[in-house]
């Protein structure tokens, strides 16, 4: 039995396979959250802290569900050794879906507890500014899409796990300044956050364009993998390119739109008393 999804070279079948490592990983996250809420939630709240809401719980578990969906059979296995399009979809779940949901699902009091140590607070503050997260996110993005990296990690469960974990962590680093949950970390204003997300739209265009327009498959792993329902390697690569561009862009532009309207609402609220005073 395998504990984490890795390329095996075996023909693809829809027979269910167990990956206990994935369950352990996902279960540990869920368990940590439940225990934190039960044991650590204070009786009284100060400042803008508030009791955990159902919405936060739902968002957290939606994020964990996204991790589970991405890492477990069938998507995890398809991504590990059969289809680049599956890998791209998995990447988006790991980076663009699960981390923001989980971050939004963490109540402020819990976030504050997590960064109450001096080092943790400093790190959280550094990551609230755009430069380091952009560098980390883009460096990981480039590294995990390099053909030698994919080839070197594909067959090993441990290496695949390490790669997946790196991708997930890069997602948290990326979304931390964009979601800006804690005001004491001096987060960016909405226009800067929109600009930050906009900057992140462009890099994925490079591999997405290669995927979409390359004449031949880029990754030997997916070119020489046993076929899944006869899907050709080039067609799979084109779907991967479109997925990265369209779905990734949709998530980022969608978030930017939400931020824009929030910013607009804040501006409007600030303007209203002034107008009333003038009138």
């Amino acid at each position, binding site marked *: 039995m395998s504990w984490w999804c890795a390329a095996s070279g*075996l023909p693809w079948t829809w027979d269910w396979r167990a990956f206990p490592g994935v369950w352990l990983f996902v279960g540990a996250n869920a368990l940590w959250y439940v225990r934190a809420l039960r044991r650590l939630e204070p009786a009284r709240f100060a400042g803008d802290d508030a009791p955990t809401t159902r919405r936060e719980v739902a968002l957290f578990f939606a994020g964990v569900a996204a991790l589970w969906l991405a890492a477990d059979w069938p998507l995890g296995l398809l991504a590990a050794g059969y289809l680049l399009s599956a890998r791209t979809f998995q990447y988006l779940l790991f980076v663009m879906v699960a981390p923001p949901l989980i971050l939004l699902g963490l109540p402020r009091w819990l976030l504050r507890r997590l960064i109450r140590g001096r080092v943790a607070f400093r790190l959280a503050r550094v990551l609230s500014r755009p430069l380091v997260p952009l560098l980390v996110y883009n460096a990981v993005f480039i590294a995990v899409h390099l053909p030698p990296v994919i080839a070197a990690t594909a067959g090993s469960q441990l290496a695949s796990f390490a790669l997946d974990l790196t991708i997930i962590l890069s997602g948290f680093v990326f979304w931390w300044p964009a979601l800006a949950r804690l005001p004491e970390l001096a987060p960016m204003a909405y226009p800067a956050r929109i600009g930050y997300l906009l900057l992140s739209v462009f890099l994925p265009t490079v591999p997405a364009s290669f995927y979409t327009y390359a004449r031949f498959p880029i990754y030997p792993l997916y070119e*020489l993998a*046993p076929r899944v329902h006869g899907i*050709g390697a080039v067609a799979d690569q084109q779907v991967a390119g479109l997925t990265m561009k369209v779905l990734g862009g949709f998530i980022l532009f969608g978030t930017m739109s939400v931020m824009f309207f929030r910013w607009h609402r804040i501006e409007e609220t600030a303007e209203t008393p002034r107008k009333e005073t003038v009138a």
Partner: protein
Amino acid sequence: MRRLMGMVTGLALACGPAGGGDGAAGGAADLRGRVLAQPLAKPEVVFTDTEGRPYDLRRQTEGFLTLLFFGYTHCPDVCPVHMANIAAVVKELPPSVTTRVKVLFVTTDPARDTPERLRTWLAQFDPSFVGLIGDTATVNRAQAAVQLPPSQPGEVDSAGNYLVGHAAAVVAFTPDGLARAMYPFGIRQADWAHDIPKLLAWK
């Protein structure tokens, strides 16, 4: 399964006359396939095509770049990948090149590969691919002629399925009728796109 194929191919290539791969003697210096130090003659065999007609290998491929592969349609990995990759490249190359290429797939599993099944299976890659059937002796003779080991059916499982161990290399015959290079599993589309025009121009 792939390991078995790799071992069979490796064995075949190791036992065969595969050379260092410079190919300079033939005139095409930088093939990405494994160039044969001593070219091999095209086997003198007659198969049956999927329409039930006799197919004289030498006569009907004369003057063409011929890519010959021995495999079977129930193959879970190597055969469909080879066929898909060759088909993808054939679609990309200009017609002036591809009209001079013939891809032949000889079944090593005649018990299950009926003409209809073979035709349908090949058509999903490229309808121009030629499916060929022969009795075991003929197929083994053809394989031996290009220094490939005979195929070997594996054990039948409870559902009646079985694998067939076979060489995983595609044999490339240049238009002069001689096998100049072998393409083991692992060869990529970009390699085919690089080599096919060179094999056609081989003098």
